[in-house]
């Protein structure tokens, strides 16, 4: 799941500006998931999932301690207190673990996989990122390379 989160991150980094802070692509991923999941399952359902994912992520990434899921499911406080990472270095290293935002996305995707299974999670991701090829049968691994 972490790898899939990294892939989404890489996609959003390319889409965004090179000088933007690390949390921006993460927020874009989160926001896209929030939009599509809220439309599909309702705001309350997304809020619940996001809250659970954040709780899971905080246990792995204490730097997320100040992050909160606000009413409507939006994310607040990301990047404020977390140590910033070196974008060039970490991109080159395929995003090592330790990035709280990516862990949060991975936890959210993990919950989707748990509740909806591979096929539906993949469908949802394809719908949310229509330009990205999620052609692996297992969404856990993302695209076959």
């Amino acid at each position: 799941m972490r790898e899939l989160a990294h892939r989404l991150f890489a996609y959003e980094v390319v889409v965004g500006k090179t000088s933007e802070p690390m949390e921006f692509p993460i927020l874009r991923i989160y926001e896209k998931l929030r939009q599509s999941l809220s439309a599909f399952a309702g705001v309350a359902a997304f809020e619940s999932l996001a809250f659970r994912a954040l709780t899971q992520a905080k246990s792995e990434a204490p730097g997320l301690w100040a992050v909160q899921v606000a009413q409507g499911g939006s994310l607040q406080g990301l990047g404020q207190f977390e140590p910033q990472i070196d974008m060039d270095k970490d991109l080159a290293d395929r995003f090592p673990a330790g990035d709280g935002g990516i862990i949060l996305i991975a936890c959210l995707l993990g919950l989707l996989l748990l509740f909806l299974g591979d096929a539906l999670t993949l469908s949802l991701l394809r719908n949310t990122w229509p330009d990205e090829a999620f052609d692996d049968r297992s969404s856990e691994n993302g695209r076959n390379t």
Partner: protein
Amino acid sequence: MSTQDKVKINKLPTGVPGLDEIVGGGLPEFSFNIIAGAPGSGKTTLAHQFVFANATSDRPALYFTVLGESAIKMLRYQQQYTFFDPAKLPGSIRFINLSQVVLEKDLGAVLEEITKEVEKANPAVVVVDSFRTMVRKPESDMDLQSFIQRLALFLASWQATTFLIGEYAEDELRDNPIFTVADGLFWLRQTPERNSIVRKLQIIKLRGQDSVPGLHTFRITDAGLQAFSRTFGLTGHVKDPPSHRRLCFGIPELDKMLGGGVREGDSVLVAGSSGTGKSVLATQFIAEGIRLGEPGIVAVFEERPQAYAERAASLGLDLETPRKDGKLAILYLRPLDLSVDETMHSILDTVKKLGAKRLVIDSLAGFEMALAPGFRADFRESLYRMIFALTGIGVTILSTVEVDESFTEFPFSTYSISFLTDDIIRLRYVSIDGQLRKIMVVIKMRGGNHAKDIREYEITSKGVVILGKRLTNFQGLISGVPIHSDRSEAKEEPSQEPEIGSKS
């Protein structure tokens, strides 16, 4: 107006096996329908089956969820069904949650939201689940009526076939505007009967369509809902013309007593007490049919198919080979909450698959016990429908029935169903010369003449074997305790054999 001037209403597949026949060939396109019933009655699953059967990427289905089960949980459970095709999501089937609008705004805003999504997607199918939760808020009757009216008009104009799902109680049928506006009203029921659960569905109304009236049983399996029509899927079937062919038992003396065999398409009842050889006779009937190239079905309720085949083998009858060759099916039907309609569905499917000509039901008592208690109350009526339907398609049915042995009367059946049968063969014990022996008599043959003889028989390693000539030297044989008559030394009269028909 001539038929060709009339507007043609397309019929959409319901996606529920058996339901198309019940609704008159399919669901009318652009109709506005309600699926009502208590929680757990299968409403959402029915709607999903319809959606998966009809949604395409060009004309998708919009599934609006409201306050009830969240879409995530709903999909978690629904994807367990075999009809669920994940490739249809989200392109062909789109879930949209309306909870927020319903909670925060009024019905006008809800209609606006639905309108917006429908205009965007141009759906062929729209489902609102649960509609009941949407209109539970206190609104004036006029507001509600206006909302339903506008929703129905809008969705029909957009050429969408609609399902509104709601938890309604039956006493709400009256005075509820939604039921007036609806074109179709599907009511699902789930009733506990002793330790069994019986599911039934009723099409209370369906405009423009000739649906099958009454309560139809249905079952929910891993394939979703499966409905069993009261007419067994034979609506419009013209009864086959009567046949003059005779079907043999392969027991020459018995076949003679029957005038050459039972008439094709008859319903035969073999009645007798325990151990008189009813099942043996039934097995011989099936085996003889297979020998003559007539595929058969045995529906057993009291023993497993393997045990049934092994018992036949002990009589020198090979049922295993025709089973493997697709000439014989032994159906074991005993889930304890069965309906006659479900049994019929299994039998009819097998009749079609095998091209079966002979059917044995062994036994009616076992069949009755396999039914849910509520269905046992209707057993006679159900048997009537079943026998009528099966003989109507040319199947010859032989049913066995156990009767209590009595020395004061000579009952034919414990079910008072002798009027349902064309032919009755009665087996019974008699006490003769300090032995408990067996006699057989043909009581009735609706289609022709039969022997009046009372014949003694034995069950041997070759099955039922009729002994000697008719018993002329006893009186009161059918009482079970006959007395020797004076004719014991008299010259034996020949058996009265009826005219022989064309044999099979």
